[in-house]
């Protein structure tokens, strides 16, 4: 155990280089900074929007309309100018992004139910989220104006009926059903919420697997390149311990790296998904539908992730043996990358259940598919599918470790090389 610890500590020290630590911290700081900026922009976008209004009508109706807009969280800034052009120039010089011009005779025309044109001027000062919100504001303002006017009209003409009942005579109640659970709510809102909560899982998994695999392959390749592997293989420590120390150290550093990465990434993504997660009412619906992860679900998900990482480490160990030097190790990550990208995209854009049998078997044969599919299966109570996936990965890991152990116990660890079309002979 003492010898194993000695080797494990050395491997971790080698992997946790200053360059890696600095690049991880810089990445986390960058994500945090971008996330902070994005959140601020989103908060500004969600706050009461200022609208400049040039009211040439000044009738009771236009006053009512502006009061209605204020009630809809718009902050009205009245403009005084000689002409519309002057109002536009003044608004352009100001801070508001939208100017609404109410024409003279507006109240009179609308009173006769004759359409009147209200002009809006959007000042695109940048193309950020706030800038993009301007067009949405225009639509919202026009809808709000139409709503206020039509409601006022209907109230005047048919006072005994609520305007809303006239405009939308058909009402709906939306229910979502998942297996035996049912709740009232919007399917799209719930899907959006679940997606916002689970979008990190595949990213975390992909990062951990790639980080760890790259580290194992590089660690073995560097030992070969620096001619230290031969010495290490002659010290009195079981070869299986050498394999295990490299795998564990890489897994450990991979997990730490992925954690740091994800802290930054979560901060970054929080800027985009915060609105959805905080949407009122969604939490209760999600709770009722059982779309939250309880302790058991987290354990199953953790097991699935853990075995996927172990499979990756074992495969990377074998690939590392094939590398001649650090440079060739970089290309050996490609098979791992392909095996991770396939289930990553399948889990995002397709449903494995509806695929043809050969394709389905191919996808399920890739060990990394199972943790990608685990989250969906847990939400849908398909625990057997998750358990079978974990069992499959455990068996796959066993076979890979056996193969890696065999390779390290024989001289193949030194003689195996990936040389296209030419066999290397060492004399």
């Amino acid at each position: 155990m003492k010898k194993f610890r000695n080797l494990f500590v050395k491997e971790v020290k080698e992997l946790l280089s200053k360059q890696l630590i600095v690049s991880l911290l810089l990445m986390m700081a960058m994500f945090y900074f971008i996330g902070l900026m994005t959140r601020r922009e989103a908060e500004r976008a969600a706050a009461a929007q200022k609208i400049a209004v040039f009211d040439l009508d000044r009738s009771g109706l236009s006053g009512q309309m502006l009061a209605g807009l204020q009630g809809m969280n718009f902050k009205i800034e009245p403009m005084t100018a000689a002409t519309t052009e002057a109002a536009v120039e003044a608004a352009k010089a100001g801070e508001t992004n939208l100017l609404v011009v109410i024409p003279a005779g507006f109240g009179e025309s609308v009173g006769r139910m004759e359409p009147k044109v209200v002009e809006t001027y959007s000042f695109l000062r940048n193309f950020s989220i706030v800038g993009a919100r301007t067009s949405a504001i225009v639509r919202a303002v026009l809808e709000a104006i139409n709503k206020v006017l039509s409601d006022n009209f209907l109230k005047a003409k048919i006072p005994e009926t609520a305007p809303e009942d006239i405009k939308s005579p058909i009402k709906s109640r939306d229910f979502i059903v998942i297996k035996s659970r049912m709740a009232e709510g919007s399917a799209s809102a719930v899907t959006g919420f679940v997606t916002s909560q689970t979008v990190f899982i595949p990213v975390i998994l992909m990062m951990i697997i790639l980080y760890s695999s790259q580290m194992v392959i590089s660690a073995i390749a560097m030992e070969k390149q620096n001619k230290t592997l031969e010495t290490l293989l002659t010290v009195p420590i079981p070869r299986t311990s050498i394999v295990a120390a490299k795998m564990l150290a890489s897994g450990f550093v991979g997990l730490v790296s992925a954690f740091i990465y994800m802290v930054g990434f979560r901060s970054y993504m929080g800027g985009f998904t915060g609105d959805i997660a905080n949407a009122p009412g969604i939490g209760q619906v999600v709770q009722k539908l059982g779309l939250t992860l309880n302790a058991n679900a987290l354990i199953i998900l953790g097991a699935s992730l853990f075995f996927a990482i172990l499979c990756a480490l074992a495969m990377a160990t074998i690939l590392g043996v094939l590398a001649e030097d650090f440079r060739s190790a970089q290309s050996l990550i490609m098979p791992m990358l392909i095996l991770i990208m396939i289930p990553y995209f399948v889990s995002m854009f397709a449903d494995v259940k509806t695929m043809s049998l050969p394709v389905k078997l191919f996808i399920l044969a890739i060990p990394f598919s199972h943790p990608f599919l685990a989250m969906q299966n847990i939400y849908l109570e398909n625990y057997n599918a998750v358990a079978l996936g974990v069992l499959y990965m455990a068996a796959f890991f066993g076979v890979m470790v056996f193969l890696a152990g065999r390779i390290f116990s024989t001289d193949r660890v030194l003689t195996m090389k990936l040389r296209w079309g030419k066999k290397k002979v060492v004399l």
Partner: protein
Amino acid sequence: MGMMLKAEGLRKSYGAVEAVKGIDFTVDEGEIFALIGPNGAGKTTTLRIVATLLTATAGTVTLLGHDLRKNPEKFRENISYLPEEAGAYRNLKGRDYLKFMANFYAATPADAAGFVRRAEDIAGLGDRLTSKVGTYSKGMVRKLLLGRALMTRPALAILDEPTSGLDVINSLEVREIIKRFAKEGISVLLSSHNMLEIEFLSDRVALIDKGRVLDSGTPAGLKEKYRAPNLENVFRSALR
């Protein structure tokens, strides 16, 4: 002097290529035994088999009575191998590298400290042991590795081209260190294609070519047998 190492009928094939075609030799306690021959003669392959890195296609190797095939772990406890062009971990400081290697052999922290002190004496790198190995010259790395190889006083030190790439002064120092440790009882199995070096260092030599031992004996005995002034001429005569 008792027999330390015995190799019998060693063969090693890589696919259709047979690199070693039946080699026999013994190394006694405190003896420096050298395999000499040109590049590709099978010297390194033979050393790698004895160092437990390669598996012989046929033949047996025993060290202190332990069979290599049956008990490679026991074998490794008693050997130390210095490969040709070997490196050390570039990100570790020289002393940390020695500590790391010592911990594989030491039973107690005191043993490990003793091994490190001995390695420091052998390497003679002084304050540079606090620098990272990546900053060392080739000669410094070689001395560090020689210190590592001899610090545990192994029963058998296997040294592949121990002065490879070193300048004259460093080569002389390394040869003197090897001689000194052999006198203290460490057996040495080394290889080189520098026959003058071997003549200075070795108690006995085996002349190898194309995977076979052409002849073996003491340098003086071989020179007398082939009526040659040095081992280079001995080798040329043995080839005929």
